[in-house]
């Protein structure tokens, strides 16, 4: 150990003065990176190495996408009285008369597995043989902010670590030149509470998500202000290193000092590497088109999907892509709202799945597609002209792809009208347990001491959804 440190010191000292940051860079690549993001062994053999988490904010209607309910046609436009129904998650939901609405979208069966998909997703429909659907997810809270927290952190309150933080805390990262947990929000409207949705909570800040912007400067303050040239910055970094090394000689009792010198080197490498991921210049036009980057509606989501592929290719552990806040929240004008959101995401996600598969990355990349809850097959009767759907905590369809999941399968079922899950019911924390499991982590063992106990992502629950495992 001291030898290693001496060697590092020697390297720094011998390089000081030649301004050899680039050479330093090369030498550093070769060294095992220390620090909180160094790769850590999993609990068991992992199926997936990375996660791409596609977050459909607002809540997608399952009966209009992946869970067809022909029986709805029979009751279309019928007013129902559900006031005797008990729903503790959303006590007010059924208090007033409700109006059933059949799906205005057409379903067809696709693929070898014969999975029904509505005409909202013509591109995703061609990928069903690579997807594992779960139609029986229940959320525990019907309010957007709380439910989004639940989706991300397993708790309905702010301040807990997000699933991306837990995964990087458990496994570190394969790439020390890029952030381990990258978040790609839609800047038209970022999720509620912003960075708290990808915060590390009580875990050390090293595990918080880093937002990369797809336009403008990718990371806040990644580059010096315009008044500082690249040369001037290099001069600053070299001088800083000299001074810090000098001081280290008389202050050896603090291990953080070396860590901080290393962090500046990492920052320097990120400056070089991050813009490469973002420019996507090495991608062919055909690839970009396959993600929909050539059309204005799909450009944003498409580019972020392509960035996600590049990031996982480079060993980034967890990438989360968001639609705009509440974008799927079609209380009214379901057709318009869902068409718009489906249009923006369908081709990009299909492009991503196909590209991952073609490059042999789908096996090691777990793709998760979900919202914070599903939608009801009905709406309050007084919104008769509005043709929308309500929040539904009791039924939601999600899908996985790749990363050791069983392709072309459907798990769970809802009742005849799609109100609630009735078979193989799972909750958010079961999704979290499944993600951890596929990444080689055991949700019971992945713990961190805080506020009096060893905390877990799955808190007091969590069961792996066995049916989706390949």
């Amino acid at each position: 150990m001291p030898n290693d440190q001496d060697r590092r010191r020697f390297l720094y000292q011998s390089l000081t003065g030649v301004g050899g940051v680039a050479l330093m860079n090369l030498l550093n690549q070769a060294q095992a990176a220390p620090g909180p993001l160094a790769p850590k062994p999993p609990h068991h053999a992992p199926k997936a190495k990375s996660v791409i988490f596609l977050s459909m904010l607002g809540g997608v209607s399952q009966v209009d996408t992946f869970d067809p309910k022909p029986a709805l046609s029979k009751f279309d436009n019928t007013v129902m009285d559900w006031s005797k129904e008990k729903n503790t998650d959303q006590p007010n939901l059924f208090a007033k008369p409700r109006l059933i609405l059949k799906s205005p979208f057409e379903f067809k069966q696709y693929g070898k597995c014969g999975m029904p998909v509505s005409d909202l997703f013509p591109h995703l429909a061609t990928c069903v043989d690579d997807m594992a659907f779960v139609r029986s997810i229940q959320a525990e809270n019907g309010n957007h902010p709380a439910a989004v927290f639940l989706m991300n952190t397993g708790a309905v309150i702010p301040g807990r670590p997000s699933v991306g933080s837990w995964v990087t805390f458990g496994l570190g990262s394969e790439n020390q030149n890029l952030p381990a947990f990258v978040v790609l929000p839609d800047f038209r409207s970022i999720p509620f509470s912003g960075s708290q949705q990808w915060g590390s909570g009580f875990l050390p800040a090293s595990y918080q998500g880093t937002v990369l912007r797809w336009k403008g400067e990718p990371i806040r303050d990644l580059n010096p202000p315009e008044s500082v040239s690249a040369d001037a910055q290099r001069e600053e970094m070299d001088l800083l290193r000299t001074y810090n090394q000098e001081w280290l000689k008389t202050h050896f009792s603090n291990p953080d000092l070396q860590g901080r010198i290393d962090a500046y080197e990492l920052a320097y490498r990120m400056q070089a590497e991050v813009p490469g991921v973002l420019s996507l210049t090495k991608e062919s036009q055909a690839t970009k088109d396959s993600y929909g980057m050539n059309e204005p509606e799909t450009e944003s989501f498409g580019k972020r999907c392509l960035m996600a592929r590049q990031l996982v290719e480079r060993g980034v552990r967890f990438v989360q892509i968001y639609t705009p806040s509440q974008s799927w929240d079609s209380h009214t004008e379901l057709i318009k709202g869902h068409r718009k959101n489906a249009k923006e995401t369908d081709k990009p996600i299909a492009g991503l799945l196909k590209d991952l598969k073609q490059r042999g990355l789908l096996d090691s990349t777990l793709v998760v597609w979900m919202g914070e809850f599903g939608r009801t097959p009905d709406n309050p009767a007084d919104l008769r002209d509005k043709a929308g759907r309500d929040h539904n905590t009791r039924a939601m369809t999600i899908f996985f792809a790749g990363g050791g999941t069983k392709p072309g399968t459907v798990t769970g079922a809802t009742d005849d009208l799609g109100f609630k899950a009735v078979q193989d019911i799972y909750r958010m924390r079961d999704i979290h347990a499944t993600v951890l499991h596929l990444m080689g982590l055991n949700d019971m063992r992945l713990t961190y001491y805080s506020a009096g106990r060893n905390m877990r992502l799955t808190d007091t629950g969590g069961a792996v959804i066995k049916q989706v495992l390949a």
Partner: protein
Amino acid sequence: MPRLIAFLWATCLIAAPNDAVFKDRIQPLLTEHCNACHSQAKASGGLTIASLDQLLTGGKHGRALTPGNASQSLLIQYIKGEKNPRMPLGGELPADALAKLTAAINEMAPLAETTKSADPHMDWLLHKPQPPSIPAAQNKAWIRNPIDAFILSKLESKSLTPAPPADRRSLIRRVYFDLIGLPPSPEEVQEFATNTAPDAYEKLIDKLLADSRYGERWARHWLDLARFAESDGFAIDGERPTAWRYRDYVIRAFNKDKPYDQFIKEQLAGDELERGAGADRLTALGFLRMGTWEADANFKTQLRQDVLNEITTTIPQVFLGLTVGCARCHDHKYDPIPQRDFYRFQSFFAATRVEDRPAPFTEVENPALMKRLMRQYEDESETASEGLKKIEERLKQKYITAKNLKPDDKNAADFLKALKDQKDPIYTADERKEHERVKTNARKFSDAFPRYRPVAYAVSDVVPPQVPSVAETYVLAGGELANKGEKVEPGFLSCITGKSEPATIPFAGGSSGRRTALASWIASPDNPVTARVMMNRLWQHHFGDGIIRTPSDFGKNGDRPSNPQLLDYLATQFMEKKWSLKAMHKMMLLSNTYQQSTENPDAKRFTEVDPDNRLMWRMNWQRLEAETLRDSILAVAGRLEKSPGGPGVFLDIPSDVAEGFEFFKWFPSDEKDQRRRTIYTFQRRSVMNQMVEVFDGANMSETCARRSTTTVAPQAFTLLNSEFTNNEAKHFAQRVIELAGPAREKQIDKAFWLAVDRAPSAIEAQRAATLFEKSPPDQALTRLGVVLFNLNEFLYLD
């Protein structure tokens, strides 16, 4: 040892009849109804019913049977269907069998109390500290005050020796940052370095404790604990316009050295303390309201329960160092805190509701100025909204004309939609811009004036005759509002009082008096934990680590004290000195323990004995906290502005962030105001200051007793590249030139003195000079400034 034997004996005595009850009355029933799944062979859910021990160990959900308490027994809860799935699976236990089972369990002798007091740590913790005798140590010359005796005797017992004293420069910097959170000026360092008067150090401490910047520094520690923020959190994250008064109250409390017991009482029950309580005491109640608040929650009963849960979780952590919150859904898994006690504690707040209470500004808050500003902004808001009305009327007319509508057509209101739709040809880009500008301006003033209202962000109690009776509190099975169990009355923690009787509630005029009862119990010299918890916090901030390193969890699952006698000494001294924090700061800082160097020549050997330096054979390193770092940069650039307190300062944020908010607007304050200390910046939960965020600031949503100190790359980006750093470096360069004149060596010398209170070494000066080769002095010094702000030496105190 005798105690242990007695205890084991006691368990045996109790255990025997329980076994008999189990064998005769419980096991037959269980075998009949449950053996299919919970036999040794099958053990569904990890639970087997073959013996009492196995039921006590329980399955994956924990202990299945709680002797003496049927309703708390999981077994019964599942059988009754209070927990899902109902047992036996697919069936139901006959009512008479259930009754027999319940009776048998209730008749068993409880285990809980006996096992719980067996832990020597809890035994120590839950008994009132007694003044310990001062231990003897060999190296008497090193002992400056009793703190040193406690430390040295432990060190000597492990053959360790303290580090040599820190040099004068390190010492004065340490004390400055510790007490006021800012670096000393070069002159102050030089003066102290050469001042050989024996009381120079003591005088320095006295001076800094009397400095008003002390309150600004130490209030921040308390605000972390109080999860202080000026917005609600959640989706809307609405502003709390007068929450800043709580921040100023805390600053004043520290500066006045308000006795800690009084400080506690004001924050929990200020309004009940005396009739016609002063405005400060209402402001102090802000503590109870600082949790997050889901303003658009559509289930208000749940919202109330969420708030009560938050308070019941936070208060014991902050004041008692106990994680009572763990007992919300079930008995505490580690500490002797039954679930019942969570709800008994919660019941102290059963009558409490949130309320913005009228509270005239006190003299120190400058009431005349507040009044003037409120009026001014109110007027400006009115003018602006009239202006907005006018322009909107004009735009509406245009819409009516373009669409050929009748003047009173309902659809005329759609002009706002047309205004939003950039493609709509009715309006020009200039019209849209003008409308947006006027609208934003109106918003700015309407946001501003409520901040100056004489209102306290507080709570009050709803009691008869306003309501027929105070709301009842129930034990909630699994923490679920729908699962009301036993009704409980307000009561103190039974693990401390040894009783589970209701607390005596004093008369409190129009209030319930419940909060006073709780506050008096917490702030009592008889409470075993209150003083220890606060002294441990003080120690942690001065020495870098607590005597107990889990400062808000002194329980079984927390850390063990490195020196319990020392903590007891500090706690008893604290109470003897009438809960004066300043007296205790002084005692800690005067000790030789505090004045040690961070480097011990025998470090290598000592590390093997005590790797974490828990015994204090050297001083711990401390990294500047985010706020201190930002304040220090402003200070060395000569740009830090004094603040009179008042509404928070809005810092510049990047425009793309500022434009992304759906429910609020962000109007940066004047440039000069933005240079106030960071504690005065507006604390919006969804908009953290970049510097504070990357340097491990408190997350504001939950109480934070200890900040982490991470080292991550984004810190480098912020500190090297941000507009803030580069701008302040520019001013730093100007200041250097003004103070040092044109000579380059003098400039470099001055730059080092200002930034790190010392002259540069020859190598350092020589390297700095290379910056001047390609750039003019002001630019070279700006770059040097950026480098100095990024030094390890700037961020870490040795």
